[in-house]
């Protein structure tokens, strides 16, 4: 059984290196037929650059998503803490009969913004 597995492994390795060699020969031929010239890249280079920008976009996309989620979570925590703080301040206000000055326009806008 083991011998069979080794044989199979060798076959896969050979197939892998054959595929690499075919790829190499094709790219070599295309580069030879289409040498880079001023301002124009050969198709193989373009293909490589294309896959590079695809993977770069994928990386940035994966980097962006957790940041957006974390911001959303932090903002809701800020709003919740604001609300709690305002509630306690209003209780203190009642207890001390201290009249706080009403919210200014700027503060009212800010409250709307937070909501």
């Amino acid at each position: 059984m083991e011998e069979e597995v080794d044989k199979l492994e060798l076959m896969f390795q050979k197939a892998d290196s054959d595929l690499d060699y075919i790829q190499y020969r094709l790219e070599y031929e295309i580069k030879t037929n289409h040498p880079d010239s001023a301002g124009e890249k050969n198709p193989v280079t373009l293909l490589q650059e294309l896959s590079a920008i695809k993977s770069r976009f994928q990386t940035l996309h994966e980097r962006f998503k957790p940041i957006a989620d974390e911001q959303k979570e932090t903002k809701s925590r800020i709003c919740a803490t604001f609300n709690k703080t305002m509630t306690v301040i209003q209780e203190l206000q009642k207890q001390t009969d201290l009249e706080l000055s009403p919210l200014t326009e700027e503060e009212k806008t800010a409250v709307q913004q937070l909501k």
Partner: protein
Amino acid sequence: SSDLDQLCSHINEKIGNIKKSLSLRNCGQVPNSKTILSKIGDEIMVINELLNKLEIEIQFQEQTTNSLKELCASLEEDYKDVEHLK
């Protein structure tokens, strides 16, 4: 079986790349191939520029996230103070 799946996708990916290269092999015979290639080259440059902008935007987002966290921490301190006052 997952190893075999991985091996299979590995080999398929290489075959896919070879097919792409094969389709490019005769692109010289496509009329206007030079124009098409140079357009593709230009488009790749434009997308790279956009990705540069996106990267800067994401870095800014990371800084903004830190500011929000600092704000949140300071606000929670304020809340503790008010609770203490009460």
